[in-house]
Structures are given as C-alpha cells and as structure tokens.
C-alpha cells in the first residue's frame, strides 16, 4: 500500500504543481506520521515527499534524490514564507500557461490588432514557468492590442508588468507608487525573475 497524506496534496496544489513525483514507499507496518511537499527547485515544479516515521511505524520512509533532478532544498518553502509569501502566492503555472496559450490565433478575439505570435507565447510561457515557484502571486495575463502578451504582478501597492511583444522585445515596467512615474527597462528573458524578485523583496 502506498500512503499519501491529504495535507501533503494540499501543499502541492497550493504550490501550483502539476508535475508531482511521489518518491515515497510502501509500509507493511503502518502509515508514516507526517508528510510534506517541498519544492526541489525554484524554477521547476518538481517535488519530493519528505516522510518521517511515526512511533508506531517500524520503518523509516525517506525521499530519495530524484535521478537527474535538482537536489531537494527543504528550506526553500520556508524561506519563501519568511519573505512574506504564503503558499497561496505560489501560483498554478499550468493554469497561467493555458491562459497564455489560449490567446494564440483565434483565441485573441478583439477586433483590433493581431494575436500574440509564437515567439511571444513561448517567451511568456517560459517566464511564467521560471516564476511559478517564486514568492510572486499569480499574474494577470493580458493580450496586447498590437501583438504580444503582458504578465502583470502586484503586491502591497507595487506593480510590475512584463510586456513581451511580437517584435521580440521584453519590457519591464515597475511602479512602486501611483504618485511617481513608472520606470521602464528593456530586459533579457533570463533576467526577468531576478529583477522581479529584487523589486518585490
């Protein structure tokens, strides 16, 4: 029998993973007393289940490092929470990606402008996947009237917008205060996660 703690499932779902790998085991003597899910890598939805034995269970069941995967970092989730994050703020990336991809072709239904192109869709998808295990909350996904997709993140009065255009530009707009003008930066895809983390830190 494989033991699966519902609390653990809630953690996984709250963390937005659809790619859960159960590295637990079977026990002939009893269920483990505690399980929890920890993200093993900040940019991928890969989890290991950390299972500790109960006093009644004679066997210890431990997660093994996943072959070919990042080594689990059991402190990451705690560190994200210490930074003001809650598990609800780690967003369900697959839903976000589905929404992004939904704007391709006929999914863009404004009578103005053009649908987001393949490069914009792929780039925004990649950025969303890089960010899904960060402490950012789920972004708004907005198609741009002249082609492209925006991801809009907000927290505590701060707003950051990542615009990925059909012209293959990525622009980060940061707004800390509605009284001050926003700041604009042309950025590389691989810098977006770091810049957003710094802005919302």
């Amino acid at each position, binding site marked *: 029998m494989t033991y699966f703690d519902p609390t653990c499932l809630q953690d996984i779902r709250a963390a937005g993973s659809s790619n859960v790998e159960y590295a637990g085991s079977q026990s002939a003597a009893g269920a483990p007393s505690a399980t929890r899910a920890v993200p093993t890598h900040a940019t991928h939805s890969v989890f290991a289940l950390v299972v500790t034995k109960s006093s009644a269970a004679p066997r210890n069941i431990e997660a093994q490092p996943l072959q070919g995967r990042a080594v689990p970092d059991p402190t990451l989730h705690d560190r994200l929470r210490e930074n003001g994050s809650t598990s609800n703020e780690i967003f369900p990336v697959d839903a976000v990606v589905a929404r992004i991809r939904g704007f391709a072709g006929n999914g863009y239904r404004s009578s*103005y402008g053009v649908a987001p192109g393949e490069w914009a869709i792929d780039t925004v998808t990649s950025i969303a996947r890089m960010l899904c295990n960060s402490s950012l909350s789920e972004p708004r*996904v*907005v198609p741009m009237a002249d082609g492209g997709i925006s991801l809009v993140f907000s927290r505590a009065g701060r707003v950051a917008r990542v*615009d990925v255009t059909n012209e293959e530009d*990525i622009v980060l707009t940061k707004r800390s205060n509605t009284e001050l003008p926003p700041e*604009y*930066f*042309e950025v590389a895809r691989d810098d977006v996660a770091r810049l957003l983390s710094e802005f919302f830190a």
Partner: protein
Amino acid sequence: MPKQEGTTPFQETEALYRRLIEDWVGEDGAVDPAAIEVPQCSVDRALLATPEQALARCNDAEVAIATTTFGALPDRFVAEPIPTQPVQPKPYELIVVFVPEKQNAAHSHIEVRQEGSAEPRKPKSVMKQRIRDEVAATMRVTHRKPP
C-alpha cells in the same frame, strides 16, 4: 493637446471611444495599457458617434467602451538622452487623424509619429510602452454591455 489632421477639426472636449475586451478593463474604471495600439490606435469620434453606437459595434468578446477626450491626450514624448550618441533621437508626437470608413463614419486614429514625419512610426520598446501607459491613463471605462 495633440496635433490633428482631417477635414473636420477635433474640438478639445470632443470625446474619443475605444472598444475593450474584458482583459483590458482594469479596477475602478481604469484601462489596461495593453488596449492601446502603437503606432495607430483606432477610436470613434464623438462628433459622429454616440458611446452607445460605439458599444453596438463591439464584437462578442468586446464588453465595454473606454472614453478619453482629444484635449486630454499627451502631445509629445521625448526620449532619455543617450550620452554616447552625438545625435539624439527625435521626439515622438501624437496626431489624431480623422479617417472615416464605409462601415464606420466616426473612425479615427491616434497616431504616433516621429517629429517632422508625416507617417506613423512604431518607437522602440521602452518608448512604445511609455506611450501606451500615458494614453491609457487618459481613458476611463464609461460604458459596459448589459450582463
């Protein structure tokens, strides 16, 4: 106030209407900058269309009308100077152009042009986003389709 072109002048208080899909409707009547096309953003002018007529032109995904006025639009955008370049880029201007269509007599464009040019021109990425932000900031969601 921006410049203008066309046979029938825009008055400073004349309203301009733009149709919005739900994704462009922000909180408290704000308009998302993604609703703004650069370098040509289609609008309907109030001289020849009511907001209700503009709303009636919405397709099934468009749910609301945003309104600005000709006089509220920004007129000029100057890029940050680039110290290493001896010749700085020319500023961009907004021009509102009346371009009636057979199906829409009120159709007009908010165009972005480089100063001195007669043609619309798409600026580089950061300037483009700044123009979107500033134009969207003049708009409010004023009319919505009934639920």
